[in-house]
């Protein structure tokens, strides 16, 4: 039976080439956009390089103090993070790093813009950067405030050119010479908590990292011993923050949270508005509107296609096909069409992603199709085919045999 449906479906699609083209165009294009969007989201928030132990991690990237008319919100100071997380029992290790900042360096009268980031030694234990050569700096080197640096592959290429190992060589940034200890794979700038060109020990920072004010340029990542300890760790941080006094009498409340990656990634910087809500709503609205038009279009065309075939339907009904089998037949036909569109869409996505990667819109961001993306595409395909098939099929099953036959 299914084979029979398949044959008919192909025959129908070939007979009405124009309608088939419209349908396939709509489906494949819609899927391409969805797949690119999925690939992007998947890369930005699903890619767990360099924080591979994500299910054991909690992220602290903001402190907010609020008074009656005023509020201050931003990243934290090194002192605040090390002092208070040092009081916690659950975290095994705490990575502390500054956000990335810019400076310049000049090689052969050529300017190179450099992003630098200060980290503590544990940062390299909590994170799993892929070292293509060398190794991270250790606690000893941090405590000594040694002028050592870890650089990204990108930086290596820009500063040293296409050469062999560079470990042990010196790189000048901010008018200081740093000895290169290691080279790591690039992190896209969209992972703003971990991106940088040069990673330096926080002790060489020119800023006063000992300052006791709460606000500063640093973020923390807490590592739990196991996945099960994460809720406990979160609760401990929350409780701890409740006991931390506000910095000045201008403020009455102090908020700081240890959040999961996604929650901290989309943080709005304001306690009152939830970043998760905004992001999820925005994406849903976009996808909804975006899917609505092609779906409507497909429904329209499907109805047209069905009405055109009303005599075939009449004949089938006259010879004993029930409405149910007809609906079933049509939905199968439509699914075949959508899957066909899905295959084309996947090919288009590969081309689109290749083009986007080549255009280098965002530095170091390499989009790719993986199983998540394919799975979502397949799911979208099925939903799409089903949605656009059901209503026309229902209309079809309502067709009166006599009028359907007469319509020829």
């Amino acid at each position, binding site marked *: 039976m299914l084979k029979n449906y398949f044959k008919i479906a192909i025959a129908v699609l070939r007979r009405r080439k*124009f*309608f088939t*083209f*419209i349908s396939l*165009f*709509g489906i494949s*294009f*819609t899927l391409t*956009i969805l797949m690119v969007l999925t690939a992007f989201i998947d890369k930005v928030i699903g890619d767990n390089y360099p924080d591979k132990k994500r299910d054991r991690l909690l992220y602290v990237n903001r402190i907010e103090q609020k008074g009656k008319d005023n509020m201050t919100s931003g990243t934290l100071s090194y002192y605040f993070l090390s002092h208070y997380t040092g009081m916690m029992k659950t975290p095994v290790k705490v990575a502390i790093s500054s956000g990335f*900042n*810019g*400076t*310049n360096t*000049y090689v052969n*009268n*050529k*300017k190179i*813009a450099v992003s*630098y980031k200060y980290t503590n030694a544990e940062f390299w234990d909590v994170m799993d950067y892929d070292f293509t050569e060398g190794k991270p700096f250790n606690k000893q080197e941090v405590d000594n405030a040694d002028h050592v640096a870890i650089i990204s592959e990108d930086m290596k290429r820009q500063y040293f050119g296409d050469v062999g190992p560079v470990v042990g060589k010196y790189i000048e940034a*901010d*008018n200081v010479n740093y000895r290169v200890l290691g080279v790591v794979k690039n992190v896209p700038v969209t992972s703003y908590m971990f991106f940088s060109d040069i990673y330096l020990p926080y002790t060489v920072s*020119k*800023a*006063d990292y000992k300052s006791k004010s709460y606000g500063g340029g640093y973020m923390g990542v807490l590592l739990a011993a196991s996945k099960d300890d994460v809720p406990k760790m979160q609760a401990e941080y929350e409780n701890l923050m409740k006991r931390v006094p506000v910095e000045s009498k201008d403020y009455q409340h102090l908020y700081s949270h240890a959040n999961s990656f996604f929650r901290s990634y989309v943080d709005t910087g304001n306690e009152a508005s939830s970043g998760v809500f905004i992001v999820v709503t925005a994406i849903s609205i976009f996808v909804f*509107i*975006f899917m*609505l*038009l*092609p779906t*409507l*279009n*497909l*429904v*329209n*065309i499907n*109805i*047209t296609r069905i*009405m*055109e075939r009303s005599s075939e339907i009449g004949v089938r009904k006259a010879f004993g096909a029930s409405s149910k089998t007809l609906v079933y037949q049509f939905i199968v036909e439509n699914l075949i069409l959508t899957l066909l569109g899905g295959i084309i869409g996947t090919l288009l996505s590969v081309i689109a992603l290749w083009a986007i990667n080549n255009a280098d*819109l965002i530095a170091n961001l390499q989009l790719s199709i993986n199983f998540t993306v394919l799975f979502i595409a397949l799911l979208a395909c099925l939903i799409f085919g089903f949605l656009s098939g059901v209503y026309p099929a229902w209309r079809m099953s309502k067709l009166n045999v006599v009028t359907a036959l007469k319509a020829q």
Partner: protein
Amino acid sequence: MFKHLFKLIWNKKKQNFLLMTEMLVSFMVLFAVFTLMVYYYDNYKKPMGFKYQDVWVININNSYQTKNTDSLDLYYETLRKIIKSLPQVKDLSFVSGNVPFSNQINQGGLTFKGKHIDHLNNFTAEDSYKETMDLDVLEGRWYNKSDAVSKYKLVVIDADLKEATFGKEQAVGKLLGNDDDKKKMKVIGVIQTIKRNGDYVKAGPGLYFRADTGSFRWLSKILVKVSPGADAAFEGKLYKTMAGYMKNSNIEIEHLTNKLKDTNYFAVIPMIVLSIVSCFLIINVALGLFGVLWYNINKRKGEIGLRRAIGATGNSVSSQLVMESMILATLSLIIGSFFAIQFPLLNVFDLSAHIYIIGMLLSIIFVYLLVLVCSLYPGRQAAAIYPAVALHEE
């Protein structure tokens, strides 16, 4: 005839419902795209307000701090002299962090004569700012040395703020401040609004304050006007000179030209993505409309033949079919406009009403054109139907 077509459409509302929904959604998508485009264009055609070519920004992180204002001033005045003595430097001004094309903002609000002005940018700059930026002074003057001893608190405002507060009247000499402020500021000049968010995004109103003693504590950026030929070698020299003087600071030099490019890039990329996506959506919709209309005409051959028989010309049949689609489009557009008009009425995104209106008009025209193009060919086909054949087909 009109009423007749309307009846025909109304009685087929069930069949036309989907078609109309499709037109409606297309309209809404187009409305969004066109409004954004008009918004960009509206900003694009405004003057930049200053000359950004050959202006560099020096960002100083962790600058020199001391409690003693005199030694603070001495430290930075020395820095100024050092930079200014470099051959290619024409002028420079210490400024607050919210320089053009940067992400930093420093905003407040102002309630003036009962009207609340939001997202008001506060800038601080020096007397030399005018020369460094080559400002366009529309009215009055920029600050000079004599303002240091003024008994009023002086202020320079930009054209946007003047428009919001004084309207078309002259602003210079008038007092500006919150309604409940005792000590108001006196406006001494109006400058062209600097498009600090790049070519395409609105800058918003701005207030400019004069830097005074002690301002160096937080003026974290320096704008430097260099001569046109200044190259990377000179930049390296400038960098070394500064880094040599400010041993404990992180220094970064950026060019406003590049920053403008980046800023525009972030405005244009979403626009391009949106345009490509909606372009395909529209092609999709157009093909669909075309297919459905074409099919409808084939289905209505009998009716068309009849109309021809009882006295309709080929042209009147084809224009009838085109008119029908246009009426459908009109109905969808009326509903769509009802939703669209809510945006300026409720002031959803803080855009001025005319942008929405133009966006709306453009999308209305576009939908009409789209429907016209899609129904023209099927309409022509209908005109070519041979009545004798059509009437005997059934």
